[in-house]
């Protein structure tokens, strides 16, 4: 039972090579014995997993195979609610918080009979790109224990890479699925904004956040995405849409390569691997076009203004009154002050401060409003590009995984490394990171960006890159 994909698990269960219970026990044993090496899990939900596995076996016994996901052992980023289990967001603020309901994506997966093994580590409230901002412990990169797994879904990506689960859910507001997927040599899909309900995803940046799959291959990403997508009346921004699933031949495929993404600051080895893949696709008949995304230079600033502003509003809810940590004082103001200063870590405080600043009187027009106008221009760049191209190909990150501690003292340097991923969230587009090779022992990822709600086509191209 090593490195099984969803399809292999499904086949194994069907052919009675193993039961869902045996499978769950094997993964739980593996986590217990080996996860201390990389620390990818915050909570192991053993009782839930065993109960779900027994239930999956019963379903399979009584009804035959129901879904590819029935009995599949998965992990869930710890900012997604699983009823009755802790959801900490890797924050002291929610250390003892138990989810009172299931996220919409979790409900859908439970209905299909998945087995939830546990909740994975993240940068506190999903704010970060290394999982070092977890209030509990840093997760390590399975390919090099001195390096970060990326973030903020670092726990999920590392757990999939080290085979502590078959696949996992992450969330992505600015690269938080794709960047750790690239650093850990797994597949990570950030769906179109609105494709997956955000109900039950702890809010960080509401206009940017999406839940998405982190998997061992492209096929599994499609399966897991299909299972969680769809309209949810509890998320007014979720959308039911026709799946754009046209048949295509690689000879008809037009791949756009943005010139602004291949500039200084990019690791030469990463550049070589991505360009080698481009040549390979061209050799198979795809048409490669240079395109321009002219406002790329402004994406980081527009992104961090948007994300921090929304975060400052969203995290105001942690007030020591409704739920979570409470440092009760004699009056309400003191309760707020003490609760927030004790509950939030440095990066969360920094982002709340930045967002509060840019939304405060006298600065709103120059900062938040300006960022939303630049966002319109960034989206327009993509709209124009997609008039003559089917899919856009870029590196996922400028460099492979960096050393633990290397950027933790320099927040701006950390922000700047998100250069290739943030524009996608600002424009609401779907994008996937697939492994493209290694530099030494360090994985490198390639990013494909698609048109809104064309995940299926996007993943077909990703499948070609994976070969």
């Amino acid at each position, binding site marked *: 039972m090593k490195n099984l994909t969803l399809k292999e698990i499904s086949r194994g269960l069907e052919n009675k090579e193993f039961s869902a219970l045996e499978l769950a026990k094997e993964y739980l044993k593996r986590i217990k014995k080996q996860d201390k090496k990389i620390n990818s899990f915050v909570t192991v939900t053993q009782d839930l997993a065993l109960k779900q596995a027994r239930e999956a076996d019963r379903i399979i016994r009584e009804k035959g195979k129901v879904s590819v996901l029935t009995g599949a052992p998965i992990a869930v980023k710890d900012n997604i609610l699983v009823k009755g289990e802790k959801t900490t967001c890797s924050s002291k603020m929610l250390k003892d918080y138990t989810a009172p309901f299931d996220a919409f994506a979790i409900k859908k997966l439970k209905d299909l009979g998945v087995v939830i093994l546990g909740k994975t580590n993240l940068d506190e409230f999903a704010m970060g790109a290394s999982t070092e901002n977890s209030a509990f412990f840093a997760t390590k990169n399975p390919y090099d224990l001195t390096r970060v797994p990326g973030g903020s879904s670092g726990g999920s990506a590392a757990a999939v890479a080290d085979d502590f689960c078959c696949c996992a859910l992450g969330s992505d507001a600015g690269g938080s699925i794709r960047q750790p997927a690239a650093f850990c040599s797994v597949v990570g899909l950030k769906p179109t904004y609105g494709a997956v309900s955000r109900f039950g995803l702890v809010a960080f940046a509401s206009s940017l956040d999406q839940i998405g799959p982190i998997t061992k291959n492209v096929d599994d990403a499609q399966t897991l995405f299909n299972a969680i997508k769809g309209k949810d009346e509890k998320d007014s921004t979720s*959308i039911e849409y026709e799946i754009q699933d046209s048949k295509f031949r690689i000879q008809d495929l037009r791949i756009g390569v943005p010139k602004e993404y291949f500039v200084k600051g990019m690791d030469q080895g990463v550049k070589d691997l991505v360009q080698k893949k481009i040549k390979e696709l061209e050799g198979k008949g795809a048409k490669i076009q240079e395109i321009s995304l002219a406002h790329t230079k402004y994406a980081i600033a527009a992104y961090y203004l948007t994300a921090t502003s929304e975060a400052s509003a969203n995290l105001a809810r942690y007030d020591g009154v409704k739920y979570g940590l409470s440092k009760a004082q004699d009056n309400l103001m003191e309760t707020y002050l003490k609760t927030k200063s004790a509950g939030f870590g440095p990066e969360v405080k920094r982002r709340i401060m930045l967002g509060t600043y840019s939304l405060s009187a006298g600065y709103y027009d120059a900062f938040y409003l300006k960022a939303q106008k630049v966002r319109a221009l960034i989206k327009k760049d993509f709209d124009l590009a997609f008039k003559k191209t089917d899919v856009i190909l870029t590196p996922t990150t400028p460099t492979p995984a960096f050393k633990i501690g290397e950027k933790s003292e320099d927040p701006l340097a950390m922000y700047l490394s998100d250069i290739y991923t943030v524009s996608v969230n600002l424009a609401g587009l779907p994008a996937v990171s697939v492994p493209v090779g290694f530099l030494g022992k360090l994985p490198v990822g390639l990013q494909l960006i698609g048109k809104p709600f064309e995940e299926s086509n996007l993943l077909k191209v990703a499948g070609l890159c994976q070969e």
Partner: protein
Amino acid sequence: MISEKEVQRIAKLARIELTKKEVEKFQKDLSAILDYFELLKEVDTKNIEPVFCILKDYLKGNAAREDKFYPGSVSDELIALAPAKKGRQIKVKSVFK
């Protein structure tokens, strides 16, 4: 560089109490990041409509739920999470003296 007073003002608005060390660190960090944000000034955004809903073209009609009672309320579970309560009510410290 933004002033210590400015950092304190923002912290107050955000309801975060900062130590002296944190104030110093944030003066430095926030200044560097806010300086970087100045980059946006060079973009001409005259006549550009700001984005508030990125895929609004895909949303059809009113996305809000119908205003009616839905079964399966979790209000008891939500109240149970409050750190201080009395029966089904959440206790809050006095706002007015």
